[in-house]
């Protein structure tokens, strides 16, 4: 029986076609992963390369005399009187200090004094004023302060501004760049890590160098807290009721379908809802992170409910039977035996919901969190009430900054995106750790 046609050593046509299909499918899979990885790498490189600069900032170290006759004519150190001196009173002091430093280092220039003053950020005078008002005893002495350099100068040290681009630029000149390079060589100008980016509030659109994420991070964390405190208990309680206790009938089917639908509702619709209910009807303040948190809670609930129900469903029914058969009540069986193994799934769903909420922009635009917020919200004060004043959020801050003309803000926006990604990464890491920690096997 040497039938060649049936030999196992030779693949028949059918087998060959089947194997070819498997190989092709394998290749499709690899290709898809390749595309995904490539997209991720491109995204990260582009964001990091344009945003990393936001984490470094150029400072000018100046020795500034604080003459009493200019800053406190009365000599009484009365803060109300001293506050009458505006930033316009401080700016010349800064300019003079810079000119004095240049003279001391033997640097000469063809620039006018006004152009020299333009090397220093407009924010610097305000910073200095705040510093002096906080410490009135400094008046009469000479202080050494690190003040912000103007945005273009900062850009020069980060490679964003070059001699060629300065030629065409109304706000700086090649000569100014030459001077700052010389100042940097003698250590007066320095670029270092930018804590202000993480702590300072937003700045006006003329001062990208002063803009920071402080208020946005505060607002985002505040909203995450509100979402966590509201959405987790409500979502888990809803899921437990629907999954374990609710009778199966038309009404529960209807609720189920609508929760799934809710998960697919565009987030901007939740924004309109929030505007109508929380601001127009309930009279809560616009732009307040409390309203933002409430809106995001509504948006996150379906995500939490769906994932919690999936987690509860994945607990084998035999465990429920076992608990009931030894005489546990329905609630005991759920809380002692169904919830614990479902916990990792619930937590993962919650954190994914939170991460989604953290990155959400559209609904916040509608409730006014897109406002320009110059100060930290004065929460917990009498006039602001418990849930206080306006704040922004990280994604909204990105949206805001990308709309501004100064290229310094493009860098800031990318920097904010990096922070947003860092937060998301941190949350997902927590989700994975919790999962590992609570996971049980059957």
């Amino acid at each position, binding site marked *: 029986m040497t039938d060649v046609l049936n030999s196992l050593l030779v693949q028949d046509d059918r087998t060959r076609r089947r194997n070819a299909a498997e190989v092709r499918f394998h290749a499709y899979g690899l290709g898809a992963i390749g595309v995904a990885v490539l997209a991720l790498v491109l995204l990260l490189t582009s964001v990091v390369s344009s945003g990393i600069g936001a984490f470094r900032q150029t400072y000018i170290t100046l020795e500034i005399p604080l003459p009493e006759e200019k800053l406190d004519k009365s000599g009484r150190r009365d803060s109300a009187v001293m506050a009458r001196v505006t930033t316009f009173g401080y700016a010349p002091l800064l300019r003079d200090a810079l000119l004095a430093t240049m003279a001391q280092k033997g640097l000469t220039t063809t620039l006018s004094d006004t152009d020299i003053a333009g090397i220093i950020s407009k924010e610097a005078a305000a910073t200095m004023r705040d510093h002096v008002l906080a410490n009135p005893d400094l008046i009469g002495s000479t202080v050494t302060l690190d003040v912000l350099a103007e945005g273009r100068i900062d850009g020069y040290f980060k490679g964003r501004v070059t001699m060629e681009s300065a030629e065409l630029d109304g706000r700086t000149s090649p000569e100014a760049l030459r001077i700052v390079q010389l100042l940097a060589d003698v250590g007066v100008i320095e670029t270092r890590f930018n804590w202000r980016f993480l702590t300072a509030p937003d700045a006006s659109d003329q001062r990208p160098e002063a803009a920071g994420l402080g208020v946005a991070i505060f607002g985002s964390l505040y909203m995450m807290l509100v979402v966590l405190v509201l959405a987790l208990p409500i979502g888990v309680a809803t899921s437990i009721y629907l999954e374990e206790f609710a*009778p*199966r009938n038309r009404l529960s089917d209807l609720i189920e379908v609508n929760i799934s639908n809710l998960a697919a509702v565009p987030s901007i619709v939740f924004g309109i809802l929030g505007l109508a209910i929380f601001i127009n009807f309930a009279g809560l303040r616009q732009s307040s992170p409390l309203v933002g948190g409430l809106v995001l809670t509504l948006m996150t609930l379906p995500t939490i409910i769906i994932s919690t129900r999936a987690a509860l469903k994945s607990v*084998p029914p*035999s*465990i*429920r*039977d*076992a*608990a*009931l*058969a*030894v*005489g*546990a*009540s329905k609630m*005991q069986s759920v809380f*002692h*035996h169904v919830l*614990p*193994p479902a916990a990792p799934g619930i937590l993962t769903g919650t954190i994914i919901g939170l991460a989604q909420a953290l990155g959400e922009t559209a609904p916040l635009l509608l409730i006014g969190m897109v406002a320009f917020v110059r100060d930290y919200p004065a929460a917990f004060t009498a006039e602001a009430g418990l849930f206080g004043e306006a704040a922004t959020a990280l994604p909204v801050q990105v949206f805001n900054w990308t709309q501004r003309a100064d290229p310094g803000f493009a860098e800031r926006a990318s920097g904010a995106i990096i922070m947003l990604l860092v937060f998301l990464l941190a949350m997902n890491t927590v989700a994975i750790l919790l999962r590992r920690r609570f996971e*049980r*096997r*059957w």
Partner: protein
Amino acid sequence: MKDTNLAESVDTMVRQKILARNVSVHYGETYAIKDVSVDIVANAVTAFIGPSGCGKSTFLRCLNRMNDTIDTCRVTGDIRIDGEDIYDRKVDPVQLRAKVGMVFQKPNPFPKSIFDNVAYGPKIHGLARNKAEMDNIVEDALKKAALWNEVKDRLHTPGTGLSGGQQQRLCIARAIATAPEVLLMDEPCSALDPIATAQIEELIQELRQSYCVVIVTHSMQQAARISQKTAFFHMGSLVEFGETDRIFTTPADPRTESYITGRIG
């Protein structure tokens, strides 16, 4: 062996434990159990046999009201344990289930330690006042379930890490830890190998001394080996009920005869 079985069963027939009269069960539109009446005696093993889907498990689950968990299930008729109607509105199924323990077809230990598995029932029913009492209850239950010697050194390892037969004995220990009077077993050996099955069967023989055991089984040999009374279910009806010995030797109903001789089922 049959003779001793018979002798023992006659000896223990004195006390009726469970009385079921005209029990019918509906699942929605399905008529699952039709008018079943049966008397189950204490300190004996009663076996329910019959082909798949004949309603024997459904009837078993009526005895501790596990059917309550199924929304569409409706039970009519009268089931009395020690003369008390268990479907009376005043009866709390939680109390009933502490009195009527149950072991399932597939071993289903909680994903917790061996100790916690056994201690759970006593804990929620407040049977132990302190740690020492609880230790005693757990040890006692595990000994009765013939599992103590195998697990005494690893009481705090997961119950799910045991072999299938050990898991099933753990489930039996868990059921008897709440000090029930009746033990319901729903095909407890169907997921086990012959050696584990033999161990469980031996265990059931011992449990009979202290409990009223009701067992559902697919295996007629098993029913013949371990039970004193046998009920044959077919298509939702109780066809024949009597001494195991008599059912297997001189069945009165032709359907019973067909089933035990392998012609149907």
